[in-house]
């Protein structure tokens, strides 16, 4: 009896062990960077790596750390990798430097699909976007129409690291990219996103870094707020015989931490997140906090508690806290930081220039009136660290109601408008009214900052094609500039080898890949009068009826001589009319009178 129980429990334990012992890894990281503008950049990063077996449909799976809903959505739609970001606010490259990974304002989704499927990519994309939208409480269902989706050739290469056969050819028909600049991101998106994390329990008693997400309104009290989720496949071993799934979920916020005192900044976990880290998450294999002290050359920092150790990334010192450290077991981790500007600063310009990112994008809408317009994009390269030509990939997806004239495309250098640069390659798909947006991809090799400009004409929409607030304007999604930086930048960027930070920090895995997003533009379209449909239909039909009536008369009637009718003088006519009126009144009175009599008798 006891023996049997022992056997049972052992096998049960073994089964549990088997299910959970495979190489599922969960890492939590928080990256903090005080910024020169007085803001502070916080980036929470949760990375889960699991065996890619869970995407196989013929076995029953045990979801240990990986969210089941995501696996279901990915499996049923044959998605090979996807990236989604929901962003409120605009990342200011010139003041904040480079983010770990950029995102355009609004929602952005792009996904690569597997080839061998029965359903076509478009229908899978539609259902995938709908399901993901439902999952994140975002209106991603608007991406399904071709109006806001596209398949860029070069800008969005797959980020999965999988063994590629020699015959492998990138087929951009498997890619769908969509961006919704009008999407508003709020706590309703944060809550379902948060629930996908393994250490989030019911209620608000989350463990680990997820504990910082308890106070959602606090997180939205920020200048920039970006939620994202990336899923891709990576190699499980160096020979790449096995693949794993890597799900990376990130939340980036930029908070204004300046105080009323000039040049003095102060923040604590409680002031930013409204809570501290009560306990570490037992499921995580790594819980690290990094503070990037890029500003330490100009600012004096006073950070508590003491860091566990310091690493150096280039010239910038980064201090690291390991929350799984023995000495922190069972204690609440609270962090506070204050810093102010040092008084003696030499060669400010030099410093400023150093902190400028290697590449910046700004975009402007040109033209006046609601008829013709244009777009001017300025791509600024930090010319100090530019020693060789770099290849820029410029991607633009413009809604169909801005009719782009590609022959007006002009690329010049920023300094001299007369020097024209010929793009290495243009890949252009013209838009079609109500069906497809304009897609433009340019490959430009340059050493200097450049301006890309082109013109468009605004379409006149039907009265029922306008959104509820027609005079708000229409958005043009951000332009995307992707490039490989030749030299190592001062900024920590997400490397393609590993989405989790600890690997990109420690290893020499710098690949220099950056994707920079410009501002999205808001342009007014000419509006018709929305209260007039019936009047206009009546008037339009009148014009046709007038023509038809007149011409019908002329083609059916004939001139001829007839008997002249006697002319009746005006006075006589008036008399006639009076007489007729009197007679009809008389008749009316009599009728009423009769009716009354009738009622009386009844």
């Amino acid at each position, binding site marked *: 009896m006891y023996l049997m129980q022992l056997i049972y429990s052992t096998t049960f334990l073994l089964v549990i062990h088997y299910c959970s012992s495979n190489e599922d890894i969960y890492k939590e990281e928080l990256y903090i960077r005080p910024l020169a503008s007085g803001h502070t950049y916080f980036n929470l990063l949760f990375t889960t790596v699991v065996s890619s077996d869970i995407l196989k449909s013929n076995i029953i799976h045990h979801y240990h750390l990986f969210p089941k809903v995501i696996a279901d959505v990915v499996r049923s739609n044959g998605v090979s990798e996807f990236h989604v970001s929901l962003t409120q606010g605009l990342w200011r490259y010139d003041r904040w430097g480079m983010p770990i990974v950029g995102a355009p304002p609004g929602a952005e989704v792009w996904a690569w699909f597997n080839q061998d499927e029965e359903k076509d990519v478009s229908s899978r994309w539609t259902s995938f976007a709908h399901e993901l939208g439902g999952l994140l409480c975002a209106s991603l269902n608007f991406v399904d129409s071709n109006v806001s989706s596209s398949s860029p050739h070069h800008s969005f290469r797959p980020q999965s690291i999988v063994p590629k056969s020699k015959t492998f050819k990138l087929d951009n028909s498997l890619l769908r990219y969509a961006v919704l600049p009008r999407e508003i991101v709020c706590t309703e998106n944060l809550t379902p996103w948060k629930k996908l994390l393994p250490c989030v329990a019911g209620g608000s008693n989350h463990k680990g870094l997820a504990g910082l997400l308890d106070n959602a309104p606090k997180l939205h009290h920020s200048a920039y707020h970006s939620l994202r989720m990336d899923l891709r496949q990576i190699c499980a071993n160096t020979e790449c015989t096995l693949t794993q799934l890597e799900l990376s979920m990130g939340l980036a916020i930029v908070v204004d931490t300046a105080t009323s005192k000039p040049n003095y900044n102060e923040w604590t976990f409680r002031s930013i997140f409204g809570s501290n880290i009560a306990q570490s998450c037992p499921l995580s294999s790594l819980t690290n906090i990094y503070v990037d002290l890029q500003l330490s050359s100009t600012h004096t920092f006073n950070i508590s508690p003491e860091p566990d150790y310091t690493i150096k990334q280039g010239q910038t010192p980064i201090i690291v806290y390991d929350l799984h450290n023995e000495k922190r077991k069972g204690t609440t981790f609270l962090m506070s930081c204050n810093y102010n500007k040092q008084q003696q600063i030499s060669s400010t310009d030099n410093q400023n220039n150093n902190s400028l990112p290697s590449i910046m994008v700004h975009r402007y809408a040109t033209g006046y009136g609601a*008829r013709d317009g244009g777009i001017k994009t300025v791509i600024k390269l930090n010319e100090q660290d530019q020693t060789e030509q770099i290849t820029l990939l410029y991607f633009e997806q413009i809604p169909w109601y801005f009719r782009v004239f590609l*022959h007006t495309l002009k690329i010049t250098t920023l300094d001299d408008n007369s020097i024209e640069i010929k793009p290495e390659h243009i890949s252009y798909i013209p838009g079609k009214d*109500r069906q497809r947006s304009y897609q433009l991809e340019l490959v430009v090799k340059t050493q200097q900052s450049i301006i890309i400009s082109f013109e468009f004409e605004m379409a006149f929409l039907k009265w029922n094609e306008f959104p509820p607030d027609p005079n708000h304007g229409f958005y043009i999604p951000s332009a995307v500039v992707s490039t490989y930086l030749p030299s190592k930048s001062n900024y920590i960027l997400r490397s393609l080898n590993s989405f989790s930070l600890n690997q990109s920090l420690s290893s020499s895995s710098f690949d220099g890949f950056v994707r920079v997003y410009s501002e999205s533009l808001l342009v007014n379209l000419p509006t018709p009068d929305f209260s007039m449909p019936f009047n206009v239909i009546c008037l339009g039909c009148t014009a046709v009826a007038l*023509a038809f009536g007149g011409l019908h008369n002329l083609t059916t009637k004939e*001139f001829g001589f007839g008997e002249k009718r006697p002319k009746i003088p005006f006075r006589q006519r008036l008399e006639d009319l009076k007489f007729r009126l009197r007679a009809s009144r008389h008749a009316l009175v009599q009728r009423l009178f009769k009716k009354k009599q009738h009622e009386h008798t009844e």
Partner: protein
Amino acid sequence: MFDGIESLYIGLGLILRIFLVFSQTRLRNYFEQSGEFVTPLNSWKRVIEGIYLRKLNVSPFLGSVVHETPLSLCFYSKLHTITNGHVESLFIIADLISGFLTYKAAYYILHRLFDQQLKDKATYKDERKMFLLTKADVQKNAYRVLLCAMVNPLSIGTCVAKSSLVFHNLLLTMTFYFFVTYQLLPFILTLCLASSISLYPIVLIVPGLVQFSNNTNNKRSIIRIVFILILFIMVNISILYLNFYLNHQSWSFIDAIYSFIFHVPDYTPNIGIFWYFFTEMFEHFRSLFVWTFQMHVLIVYLLPFTIRLRNDPAFLFWLLCAIFCIFKSYPAYGDVAFYFNYLPIWSFLFRYVRQGLVITCMMIVAALMTPITWYLWIYAGSANANFYFAMTFIFNIAQTFLLSDLIYAYLKQQFFIKNGLTIPRINGFEGQLEFT
């Protein structure tokens, strides 16, 4: 080659155009951007875009910017390379040629009218001779046509705006010229080319049938009609196939041109009524009204006019042109100019026109107010689309009034020629002229 007055008028037109095209850049920019002169169907900017896309190896008909036929795009691309981008002079030359051809066609029409009257003169009583054209009238009216074509601000504006309508009008004028000079093959060819560009001229085959079906003893022959029809269809099909071939064997241009013209998906304001009507249309009634309006232009007047004016195919031709220029889906001032320039031919009808003053005032007011309301709507933002639509609406109504008045005048004149001016006594009473 030209006599004194001709060269004077042509010189005047040439100088005006050169002056406006080459020295008035602001005015030129205005014309190039104004929706009254340039529609999506004939904007030169879109032609350039088409040429550019062809160079990029992107099909111009993939998007909805280019609406020229592959053949005309090929032609414009040749023009563009020959002149190295400076096409203005070609536009001026084309406009002058079409003006001269208009004059020639007008001269033939007037001459024919005069000959006809000479033949019938014997049967007229003395009093009816006051309606007849004199030899001097023929030349005078033809000169007036030339002058009108040369200084008509609508023609000049179209030329300055570099609207491809200039070339389309040249084709249509050639069609008319070959029509009045009885040259069947060139007529069919130019007609098919013109209708392959803008679809509507296809109705002009009907006056063509009336004109060319008469055999030697002035009887209409069915065989000739069938022959002309077959010829017309064959040429049309071969042009369609040529376009198909030039478009790298793809039919995508059908959607970009004919469907674009017929279904009116573009609501860019122009001088017609389609744009605002379909902007404000309810979606479920759209196809009904599209078909109604297009049938109204293409078919409704075809039979009645043909029956009524079977003895004067030239007038019938002109009238159908005017009808589709008024009611086509994307009309521009260039279309109006096309049929306006022929008006002086029928100047002997003007004395019977009843609402001359009203029509003239409406046209002038609408033409002057259109740019003002456009500015207020699009740039100043102080007016809305209704103001602009009101003006285009007035312009449209004025044109229909003009047309119906002219037909009325034509019928009245015909009646007077037949019956004289004296009104007979009927049943012993005084008689009067009736239109019943």
